[in-house]
């Protein structure tokens, strides 16, 4: 990053644009979360399972985000790793009521962390233990334990429970995420 960039960043002159990757198993609520983060006039009313990926934009604390909303279906999960290199942060969404597939989410997370494009890099990781409103949802602590997050030490990470339909918990997570991203840019 050149001196000019740093200066303009410091002065807040340059429009900050951050690329984030949103991953997680299908039906975990990724598209619903992103939809909730978008400004009201851009919100879509109906959310269908994503095919391949979709590119969405939203703004949080003067930072402009470009979110790559990946599809979580098994046959599209191969696409994830192609975007690891260019992203500046990763949001990992977990359906905390889908206890059966928690092990699958862990498997995907392990592969993500071990991937050469992620392993040696400073990438903030935000976890949403989504669907907290459902009856058999696990708490964020339990989800963190099931994913083995305590072992994740070389990257800043944060987990929070969320409800993508009402938006509960989303702001807290995104606030942390924005701060991390801004810190890494400075």
């Amino acid at each position: 990053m050149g001196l000019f960039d740093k200066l303009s960043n410091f002065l807040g002159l340059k429009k900050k644009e951050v690329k984030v990757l949103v991953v997680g198993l299908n039906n975990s609520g990724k598209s619903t979360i992103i939809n909730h983060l978008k400004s009201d006039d851009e919100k879509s009313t109906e959310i269908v399972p994503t095919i391949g990926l979709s590119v969405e934009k939203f703004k949080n604390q003067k930072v402009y985000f470009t979110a790559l909303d990946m599809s979580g279906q098994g046959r599209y999960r191969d696409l994830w790793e192609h975007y690891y290199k260019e992203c500046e942060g990763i949001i990992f969404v977990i359906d905390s009521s889908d206890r059966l597939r928690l092990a699958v989410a862990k498997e995907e997370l392990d592969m993500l962390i071990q991937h050469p494009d992620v392993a040696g890099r400073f990438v903030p990781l935000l976890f949403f233990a989504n669907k907290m409103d459902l009856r058999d949802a696990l708490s964020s602590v339990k989800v963190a334990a099931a994913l083995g997050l305590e072992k994740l030490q070389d990257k800043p990470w944060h987990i929070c429970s969320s409800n993508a339909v009402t938006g509960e918990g989303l702001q807290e997570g995104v606030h942390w995420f924005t701060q991390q991203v801004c810190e890494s840019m400075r």
Partner: protein
Amino acid sequence: MASLRISLSMQQPWIDAYSDPKAEIRTFSSCLTLGDLNGDNEYKLILADLGSGSGHVKLKVYKGTSLSSEIVLLDFPSAVVSIYTDTNEPRIPGLAVSCGCHVLVYRNCRPYFKFCMPSIEASSLEADLWRQKSQTTQMVRLLQELADEIGYSNLSAPSQTLLALEPNMRDEFLNKNRHHLIKKQTVITCMTAIKKSLSDEKSVSCIILATENYQVFILDPEAFVIMDKFPVPCVASMISALGLYAVDYRVLLASRAGKIFLLKAGVTVPVAHLASHPVGLILHTLSFTIATMNGNLQSYSTKGIKQWSTTLPGAPVDVCCVPLQGLALNLVAVSVSTDSGGSILLYSGPQLMHSFNTPTPVSALVFGRYGQEEHALCSVTTGGALSVKLLKRTANFGNGEKAPMISGSQPHNIKLLVPKKTRLFVEQTLRERDQCREMHNWFQKAWLDLGVSVSEAYLNGLRSTSVCERESLKLTAQVLGLGPRLKIQLFLENLAPDYVPAGLAVTFLYDPKLYTIHKTYIPVPMLVPGLTVSLETLVTCELGVASPLQVLVFASRLLLTAVINMPPATATLV
């Protein structure tokens, strides 16, 4: 990195998503199925828990990692299938359970419809007996006679019950049931389903039933009426079907005795007769795979030609189909019971692709969509434990499927080594054709000649008795010493019980350059039966070379010879 990941997933392609060792479930594969019961795209696991024998039989529905509902069944079910019975939205399938002579259909876990197999008129004699209102003892006697005549299994259910009851309970039973019409009710032995006219995942299916009275029925799912009825030559104990009802379909039936029949276009043809009882069968488009009780997994073409057979590492308990479209593999999972517990083996054709062990043998297996996951393997062990394994996205079963098949595994492909017809052979056949008469005469003459010479030899043998003598002598030889001077010891025994040969002697055939034998002629004393005579001579080796030496026993003719392999002499006398 990628290669590491693949090698890791090669080791274990399954994720252990859920297991409940204390689920206490007793079930079989036919009573285990998966379906989107609530139409919310969250597939449930449905199983009929036969219980430990004391409690009720229950239909249990598992959602994710927990039991979501239970339905009590009044009878033991023979099969459970989840099928779409209509095209209404939202798409909610019905759960068909075959129990005795009924097919119970549940929707949203509530009873929805009950189909009853048509009853059959009982034998008129039997109906008369029941109408006559005779005394209990007389009635039982007459029924017993009828049973002997037409067979117990051909009696109606009340008659069968009456005969099976304790004598003191018969009166009561008879009084209670007299007014009933005597009708025979058949029992559904197995059930499966095929799609009616569209092959989509959620299109309407037809139920196929096989019954105890040698019939196969196809039910229309929308109205629950019998669309087709086929007589079959066996009571099917296992059934597998493929195709579309409206287009073309095939039903594979296995009888309890191990005969396999294929029902196609309304015609039942026998396709195979197994050497052992079938444990599970899967019908593919052009072939079918069967696991048999004698520990084999076999494949036959639908025409009944055996394609391959492979030996399983234990006794098979269950098989299920594992189609993996993403990997272009159509595997067959076989659960076997071994000495150390159980294991599940995945075969692609005769090729073993992967296997893993389970603490106890798995009694029921099903593969398909469970929850949100496309590739789930749900199993129930004989110990009652429930476990769900999910196939890893990166699972790779190696390129075992590309490995060349062992040619020996396809019996119909084995070429017999029939030699080419030589010129000699062709000429001979031509000659045989031209001169058959002469050849026949020649053969007859040679045949007679042979007979004559055999008879002559026999007579000769009888007269000279040399055959007996020879056979009755036993000679063993032994070489003692290290050399150059050796001792040969011979033991002669007469085995004939009533004959004493006389004038026998022993001599040797040897190379005089190598050996000097001190006594080249040894007369044999009288050989009394049962007594062993020992003869010996000294031998001196002249050169350090060993060569075999022949012993001859003779009277007026040569009777017996033996070869002695001489040991190599260590040194020669100088």
